[in-house]
């Protein structure tokens, strides 16, 4: 359905044209006003705030410090550690999200009875609030009472303090994020798989290609655009992960799981150094906008935008 067929053409007569313009403005106004008020203005204000140092508790002592907050940031070992941690978690989580999501999508590709219901059930984790997901996993991973440790003991393995042991805490966080995010990947890749033309597969089968070969040489290349789009999209949300950190570890043990979103929150709302917090938020914003631009670029290249 081409957009030309769905667009209202420019009218010729001026009163019609004026009516059209008024309608456009009227329809767009509520949304634009709201977005300017709740997004544009706060973000601009954040940027401005990042150039200041302000004692928000007393409401006084606002001083303009230029780029000092940014300079402090890149000299701050804690910040750099947080940035590195965030990148590690994002990369690892994305990798597993893809493996689990794609594997599940492949397994669901062929018709069987109850497939629709199973797909919906497997989509549940992504619909559940990250806070709730975190609480569930906190309970499951509990050292004394958790189901996971009990299952490990039954299998003869040792139980661990998953969320308080520095050796296992990062993996646990990744695992919870994958639990929450993989269904999204699964749904999109499944839709992508189902939209692939079957004639290529028939030709490949006739040529004697095995299922594995077909997967590598036919499916993957054709799905690459969808995969790229979905994974870039997911990277945005994994990068800015906050709820899980807050609930599962509170940034611990010993501040080692402070992702950049949590770090910014701590700076602004616990240490009350709002200028610094705003600067971190701006850096996050820049990174995410870069990812967003990459996302749009891929969408455009693959002609997925209209």
């Amino acid at each position, binding site marked *: 359905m081409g*957009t030309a*067929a*769905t*667009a209202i053409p420019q009218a010729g007569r001026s009163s019609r044209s004026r009516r059209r313009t008024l309608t*456009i403005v*009227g*329809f*767009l106004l*509520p949304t*634009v006003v*709201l*977005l300017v008020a709740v*997004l544009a*203005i*706060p973000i601009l*204000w954040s940027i401005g*705030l990042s150039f200041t140092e302000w004692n928000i508790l007393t409401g006084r002592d606002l001083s303009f410090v230029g780029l000092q907050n940014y300079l402090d940031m890149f000299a701050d070992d804690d910040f750099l550690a947080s940035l590195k941690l965030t990148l590690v978690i994002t990369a690892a989580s994305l990798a597993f999200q893809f493996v*689990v999501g794609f594997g*599940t999508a*492949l*397994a669901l590709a062929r018709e069987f009875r109850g497939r629709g*219901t199973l797909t919906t*059930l*497997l989509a*549940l*984790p992504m*619909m*559940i*609030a990250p*806070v*709730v997901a975190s*609480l569930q996993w906190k*309970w*499951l991973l509990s050292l*004394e*009472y958790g189901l996971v440790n*009990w299952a490990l003991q039954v299998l003869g393995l040792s139980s661990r303090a998953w969320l308080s042991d520095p050796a296992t805490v990062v993996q646990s966080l990744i695992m919870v994020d994958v*639990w929450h995010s993989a269904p999204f990947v699964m*749904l*999109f890749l499944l839709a992508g798989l189902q939209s692939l033309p079957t004639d290529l597969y028939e030709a490949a*089968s006739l040529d004697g290609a*095995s299922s594995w070969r077909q997967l590598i040489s036919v499916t993957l290349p054709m799905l690459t655009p*969808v995969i790229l789009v*979905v994974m870039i*999209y997911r990277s*945005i949300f994994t990068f*800015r992960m*906050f*709820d899980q950190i*807050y609930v599962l570890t509170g940034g611990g043990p010993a501040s080692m799981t402070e992702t950049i979103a949590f770090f*910014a929150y701590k700076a602004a709302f616990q240490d009350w150094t*709002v200028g610094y*917090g705003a600067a971190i*938020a*701006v850096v*996050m914003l820049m990174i*995410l906008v870069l990812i*967003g631009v990459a996302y*749009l670029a891929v969408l455009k290249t693959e002609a997925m*935008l209209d």
Partner: protein
Amino acid sequence: MSWRLERSITSGIAAVVLLLVSVYALVPVVWTILTSLKPVKDILAMPPVLMFIPTLENYQEAFFKGGFDRAFVNSVVVAAGSMVLTIVAGSLAAYALARFRFRGSGLLAYVILMTRMFPPISAALPMFIFFQRLGLVDTYLGLIAAHTTFTLPFVVWMMRGFFLSIPYSLEEAAMVDGCSYLGALRHVSVPLAAPGLAATSIFAVIGSWNDFFFAMILSRSSTSTLPVTVNGFLLEHGVLWGQINAAATVMMVPIIVFTLLMQRNLVKGLVVGGVKG
């Protein structure tokens, strides 16, 4: 190898994969619901107890002593308010973006899409400061406005996709018969886009219902929503797992119901509005 054998093997692998993934995906959900119905002594029993007499005491404790009744009402009010506001404003804007090709309409649509990328804190911090001055901290209005930051762009983008998939000829016919733009929207487009509208509304409600970050920063004792109260309970009381699981179940059940109801529209809604176009 023979085609038959290969097909059996891949089916077998698929079955194993689905089994493992189902366990991974659903055990947390099922275990939470089960735990919420267990008497306290069974909750802390090791090895875990599978046979028990179900009880509602955890729910009673959470609701009548833990303040979840208030939080539940708050969550409903904020979610409903966000939904109404963003569906009305967002659908109008989406219609304009889908139907009217004016200069910058494409750009505006992309800008709205890009707003999904912003880190919540860059909006939440100034909002907190503004709201403190304006006395909007801990108000429904403030929280609904905050939730608009992420529900509105989503609604615009999804509804735009749905409107684009409806042929214009039908509205054209209505306007030839004398309808205004708004009239055509009301009588033709909205009924046709109704399934899309329903799916979008549900996503908007879920987004607001699940929000923790804005609620934590912008609400205090009178308007704290379920996610905030649930988490606050964990910190204060430490190990009252029964009540926490009960609260988690209460938060999850509407989501589960909606998801199952939306079954067919789930992928359609996401794909049409989310990634593609």
